[in-house]
């Protein structure tokens, strides 16, 4: 179906790009992305993907908006305090772009619900703030053959990598197993500079758009790290691990696992 004149105008700056054009914009309109976590990372991802016209966006988060979120979670406003983050995020996304569809999951992801959740989407965003969820998302995406963008932020640092099924090492190839609960501080304990979510989350949104339109080179097989204080980006090549417990030659993990979560991170 041809785009309407309003759509041509809304997405004109995409359409002008040779790499996107009307074809690429139509792909975005027919795509779906699941954002897990409506926090520091999920906020910019949701705003940019809604603005980009991703046809269906799922957003999963069990928390309510808290005053302490607003320093960085730019999809929520002061008036949203006390609301479910997924509802607040949905309202913000639809306010930007009423022609998209937003599904909300007011729940933690777990071994029992994640496969059902990710099955309906073309690309997954890990915007979570804890290791059990990161390993869960990785394993589920490997098992379900879904591409995803991993990211993490803490203090003045951030990192991300992209996984494409069968084409790149997974998060577990690199990080093996979660650290013991409480061995690594969460951003609740350690703090995080607000704009870090914007930097890293925007890169995740960019990876999603590139994957969905099939343009450029993805951050597959690399970890990009950002140190804001040193103002340094590093792109580190990641090897496949043929003994990886989930994507290796003889996988031991055949279904998603719930790891114990640090009490303070719940």
């Amino acid at each position, binding site marked *: 179906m041809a*785009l309407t004149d309003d759509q*041509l*105008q809304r997405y*004109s700056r995409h*359409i*002008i790009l040779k790499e996107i054009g009307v*074809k690429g914009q139509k792909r975005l309109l027919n795509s779906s992305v699941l954002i897990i976590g409506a926090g520091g990372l999920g906020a910019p991802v949701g705003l940019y993907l809604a603005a980009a016209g991703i046809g269906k966006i799922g957003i999963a988060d069990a928390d309510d908006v808290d005053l302490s979120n607003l320093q960085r979670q730019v999809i929520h406003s002061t008036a949203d305090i006390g609301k479910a983050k997924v509802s607040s995020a949905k309202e913000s996304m639809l306010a930007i772009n009423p022609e998209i569809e937003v599904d909300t999951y007011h729940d933690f992801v777990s071994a029992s619900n994640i496969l059902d959740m990710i099955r309906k989407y073309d690309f997954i965003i890990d915007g979570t703030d804890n290791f059990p969820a990161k390993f869960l998302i990785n394993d589920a995406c490997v098992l379900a053959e879904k591409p995803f963008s991993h990211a993490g932020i803490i203090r003045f640092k951030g990192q991300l990598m992209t996984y494409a099924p069968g084409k790149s090492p997974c998060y577990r190839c690199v990080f093996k197993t979660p650290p013991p609960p409480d061995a690594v501080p969460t951003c609740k304990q350690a703090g995080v500079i607000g704009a870090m979510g914007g930097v890293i989350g925007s890169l995740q949104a960019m990876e999603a758009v590139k994957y969905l339109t099939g343009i450029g080179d993805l951050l597959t097989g690399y970890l990009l790290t950002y140190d804001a204080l040193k103002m340094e980006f590093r792109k580190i090549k990641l090897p496949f691990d043929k003994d990886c417990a989930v994507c290796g030659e003889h996988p031991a993990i055949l279904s998603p696992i719930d790891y114990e979560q640090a009490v303070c991170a719940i």
Partner: protein
Amino acid sequence: MSDRIIAEINEIKEKIDITHLVCPMTFVKAKATIEELELGEILEIRLNDGEPVQNVPRSLKEDGQKVLKLKDNLDGTYTLYVRKDSE
């Protein structure tokens, strides 16, 4: 202009008028219409003198399309004939 181009221009697939639009919607509308055509099909575009006539043909060329002819209508508008040469 060669006989071949004249013959081609006689087989216009689609016509649009972008005289009511301003940059960048002039190019966006032209580009969007061309994307709906098949390779080799011809689009006729009526556009204003000034910025549109300076930029739209150039942008279409940069996109890999073939500008066949630009005709001055002597009323402040031009008619541009473009063949789709690139997906």
